[in-house]
């Protein structure tokens, strides 16, 4: 009983009708997912849509349509599609094997084999001799777009064996694509990392401001770091402004540079599975805490983002902490930089005379220092320590993607397109013909299989040959 149910299930999953319905359901789902705004419940587009369509929203929320493409239901449909594709690919492989064998044997046919096995038989006009009939038939078939050659007393047009493999190759590659997508998403990590010019940041989860990763991502296996060597706010190449462009270096575990290059759209830094894109930029202040003897207790970068709404045009992201002699944080310090202004608002670039506003707050919330500091200036903090503004530089927010499956995806895509090209463009056909002369009549015999991309149809071929040979059909046999 279980065996029968299993067979029924496999038959269902293998059936072309099921595959067709599944494809239609998936496209319907994608259309709905394209219409309904995508995002979490707090997303502004989702909230606006929900407010505008309260009746529909109830159902949309019930099936989680606002996350249509990460939804378990969508995932289940894609898994079903994968299974159906695998079974379909297997069926097509069996067909291709048979067809390939048929093409192979047909290519070696001679007059006797066509006489023994044919589909169309035409009794030629009595005035035609056998060679004349062959010549006229060859001309007719070629006029219909099928090139024939003479071989052992027969006219032969047989496609190459590889032409049978386009469709299975395409379907297996589609399955490979689905598998690669799932594997890629399981191992992939993607995030935004702010790196100031001159700063080196380890490629670790904690270094990212925003990061997402797959279930099987292993951060402990990553031993490399990212450095920004330079930053050009307006890099122009070939007459096209490439936008704010950092020069980025990826270093290995020993600090050795693996690759260095300018990073701008369509010129990403790639090394192994790692790809680095430019995302945004801002300013960064490098500051140090020094003790009374001038010894540097610690130094670091403060990321500063541009903001038209903020006073001075920038906001500090994160901050320093000021340690005591035991290294314990006793103050929090934040640094922002005042930008220059024009009629359009704050000019989002390095001011001509950069200066930083340093605000130091004690752990009880009271402000102990709030003043503007110039580059290289040292200001005293309560106690024996001082803050030194070492530099104000640009920082690049880099989008860092680690996904080793991307080259694999591209390779599978290429295989899929090769398979599809073969299935689309290559003919799969067998046309074998010969003439048999007897004392009473001249018969023209044709064996024909027009499986795919043939320029004519069997009935047209039959009609045209009958007309050309001035005869009548004696019937078909296989």
């Amino acid at each position: 009983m279980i065996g029968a149910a299993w067979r029924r299930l496999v038959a269902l999953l293998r059936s072309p009708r099921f595959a067709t319905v599944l494809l239609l359901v998936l496209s319907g789902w994608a259309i709905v997912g394209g219409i309904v705004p995508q995002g979490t419940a707090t997303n502004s587009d989702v909230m606006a849509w929900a407010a505008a369509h309260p009746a529909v929203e109830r159902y949309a929320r019930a099936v989680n349509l606002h996350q249509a493409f990460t939804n378990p239901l969508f995932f289940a449909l894609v898994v079903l599609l994968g299974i159906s594709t695998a079974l379909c690919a297997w069926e097509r492989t069996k067909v291709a094997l048979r067809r390939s064998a048929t093409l192979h044997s047909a290519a070696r046919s001679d007059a006797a084999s066509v006489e023994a096995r044919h589909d169309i038989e035409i009794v030629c006009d009595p005035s035609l001799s056998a060679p004349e009939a062959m010549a006229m038939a060859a001309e007719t078939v070629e006029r219909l777009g099928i090139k024939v050659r003479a071989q052992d007393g027969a006219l032969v047009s047989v496609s190459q064996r590889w032409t049978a493999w386009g469709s299975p190759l395409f379907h297996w590659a589609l399955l490979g694509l689905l598998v690669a997508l799932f594997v890629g998403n399981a191992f992939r990590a993607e995030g935004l990392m702010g790196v100031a010019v001159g700063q080196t940041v380890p490629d670790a989860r904690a270094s990212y401001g925003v990061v997402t990763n797959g279930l099987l991502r292993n951060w402990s296996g990553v031993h490399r770091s990212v450095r920004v060597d330079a930053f050009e706010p307006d890099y122009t190449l070939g007459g096209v402004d490439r936008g704010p462009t950092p020069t980025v270096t990826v270093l290995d575990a020993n600090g050795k540079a693996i690759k260095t290059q300018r990073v701008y759209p369509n010129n990403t830094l790639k090394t192994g599975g790692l790809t680095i894109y430019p995302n945004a930029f801002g300013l960064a202040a490098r500051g140090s805490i020094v003790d009374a003897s001038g010894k540097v207790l610690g130094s670091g970068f403060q990321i500063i983002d541009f903001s038209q709404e903020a006073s001075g045009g920038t906001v500090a992201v994160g901050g320093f902490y000021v340690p005591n002699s035991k290294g314990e944080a006793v103050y929090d310090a934040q640094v922002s930089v005042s930008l220059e202004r024009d009629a359009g608002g704050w000019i989002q670039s390095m001011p001509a005379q950069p200066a930083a506003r340093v605000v130091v707050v004690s752990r009880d919330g009271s402000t102990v220092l709030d003043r503007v500091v110039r580059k290289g200036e040292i200001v005293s903090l309560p106690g024996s320590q001082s803050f030194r503004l070492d530099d104000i530089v640009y920082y690049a927010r880099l989008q860092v993607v680690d996904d080793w499956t991307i080259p694999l995806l591209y390779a599978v895509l290429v295989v899929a397109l090769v398979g599809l090209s073969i299935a689309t463009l290559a003919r799969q056909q067998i046309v074998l013909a010969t003439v048999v002369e007897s004392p009473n009549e001249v018969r023209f015999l044709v064996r024909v299989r027009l499986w795919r991309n043939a320029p004519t149809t069997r009935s047209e071929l039959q009609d045209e040959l009958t007309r050309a040979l001035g005869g009548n059909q004696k019937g078909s046999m296989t």
Partner: protein
Amino acid sequence: MIVEILLTWLALTLYAVSTVLVVVGVVFSNSRFTSWSVIAAAIGAVLQTVSFGVRWVRLGHGPYLGFYEVAGSLVLFAVATFVVVAWRNPRLAPAGIGIMPVALLLLGGSMLAQGEVVEMTAKLTSWWLILHVAFANLAFGAFVVSFGCAIVYLVRARSVDGKWAKRFEKLPVQEVLENLTVRFALLGFLFWGIMIATGSIWANEAWGRYWGWDPIETWCLVVWIIYAVYLHVRFTLKWTGVRLAWFAIIAMPLSLFALVGIPLVFNTPHAGIGGLGKDL
């Protein structure tokens, strides 16, 4: 600029003339009119190509940015495909009755909707753009010819009194016409697939992700799936005849909507084809 506009208007006029000629040719069963309609379409395509060439020199980039350029190049590829098909097989010239009106309306619409010129930016400066757009145009050209063949098939199949069948009598037999419809859909399916693949690779280079379920990406996938369904019903479920022709007729406008309709309806970062340009 004046030469460019003048040439485009001339091309549009010739597409209109071609449309009228093919309709007259079919209605009055006059093959001379249908032949002239192909010649008018060919001259129109040449003029439109020259117009795009002039524009290319003026702007420094090909006709693939902004609604006017994208819609115009779709028209050019569709008409050129039809002209090549009709030139190689003159019996197919009456299929222009389904193709030239689409070309006429789309080019006219794009000229009326002509917006601001989209300049090249860092994200658009890529060879992938050219490949991506070229295959979109080729795919649309193939889908439109498939659509034209399906319309003629349908008209002939539904001609109860045989009057319309007689008007299309010079066309290949229905079976051959159906095969042509399927073959052009198959070709369009291949080109559309290449368009999606090249777009995906380019998106990974420019945006940092190969797929983002952006409305255009989603709709392009939907169109590809719809044509996959079409090919499945043809090759595995063995659909033939009128219902298969209807399928080809319904599928083509979906591809048109994906290419030029989506940017008008949805907010999409595909600014190159007339989106709101959030992410140029």
